[in-house]
């Protein structure tokens, strides 16, 4: 049987790959994709914990479902906002949204 820790290694790595992506991606859609990785990593955590550690109730299970749903909603809004940015600036690179600062 595969131990929990193995899954955790995967999820943690995936999480930080997502974080890395968030930090380096040069355009907003790419960043959004990195966020999806992060959320997936979290979902793996929930599912695995539920499956291996606390199988009595479906807490983690349900949680990951909701995370997927919320992620979908979030992505929808985010994409429409990115499109909005594109409309205004004709650009979706991170560097283009740099007016507000200091």
């Amino acid at each position, binding site marked *: 049987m595969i131990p929990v820790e*193995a899954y955790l290694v995967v999820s943690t790595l995936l999480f930080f790959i*997502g974080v890395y992506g968030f930090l380096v991606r040069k*355009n907003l859609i790419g960043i959004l994709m990195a966020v999806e990785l992060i959320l997936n990593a979290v979902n793996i955590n929930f599912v695995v914990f539920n499956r291996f550690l606390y199988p009595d109730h479906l807490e983690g299970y349900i949680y990951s479902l909701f995370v997927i749903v919320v992620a979908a909603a979030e992505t929808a809004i985010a994409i429409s906002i990115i499109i909005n940015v594109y409309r205004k600036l004709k650009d979706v690179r991170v560097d283009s949204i740099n007016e507000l600062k200091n």
Partner: protein
Amino acid sequence: MAEYLTSIDFAGLFTADNIVFFILSAVILVCGFMSVASTKLLRAATYLFFTLFAVAGLYLTLSYEFIAAVQLSVYAGGILVLLIFAIMLVKNLGTDTETISYVNKTIAGLSALAGTVFAFITMSKFRFISSEGANDAAAKVDMEMVGQTLMGTDRYQYLLAFEAVSILLLACIVGSIVIATKSKED
């Protein structure tokens, strides 16, 4: 984790379960990494698709078919499609190669690495105790149970959350529309 590594039975490593797990993990991690590292956005989206797929596969190995299905339909079928639409909508985005300076990569990479190491260390100090029933076939979740959990009002049942998220979804639809429709005035 250190204890874990010393206690590995290397001969017993190559069970079917393990091999599947390794393959899935490899796909998840490699494709995940490629999806953030590839210079072309469309390719990145493709790698992301693989990752999502592999995650779904992972859920399947855990015998959580429903989540796997949701993962596939919502993520792969919905979110990813949205992303690809967006990529397509934006001029040249799909074909542009983006170059990231090494400084950025190094800083981000080191930070992420530090985070990973840190997370591993913290996790390694904690003893996760697998539940007795983890291996049982009972762990298999049937749809009725999922339905009851989602619709019930008792402890560990989530009708309220279900209702709440509906408001969220509705609001998000409206929100998306309000941002999208604005173009008419512009």
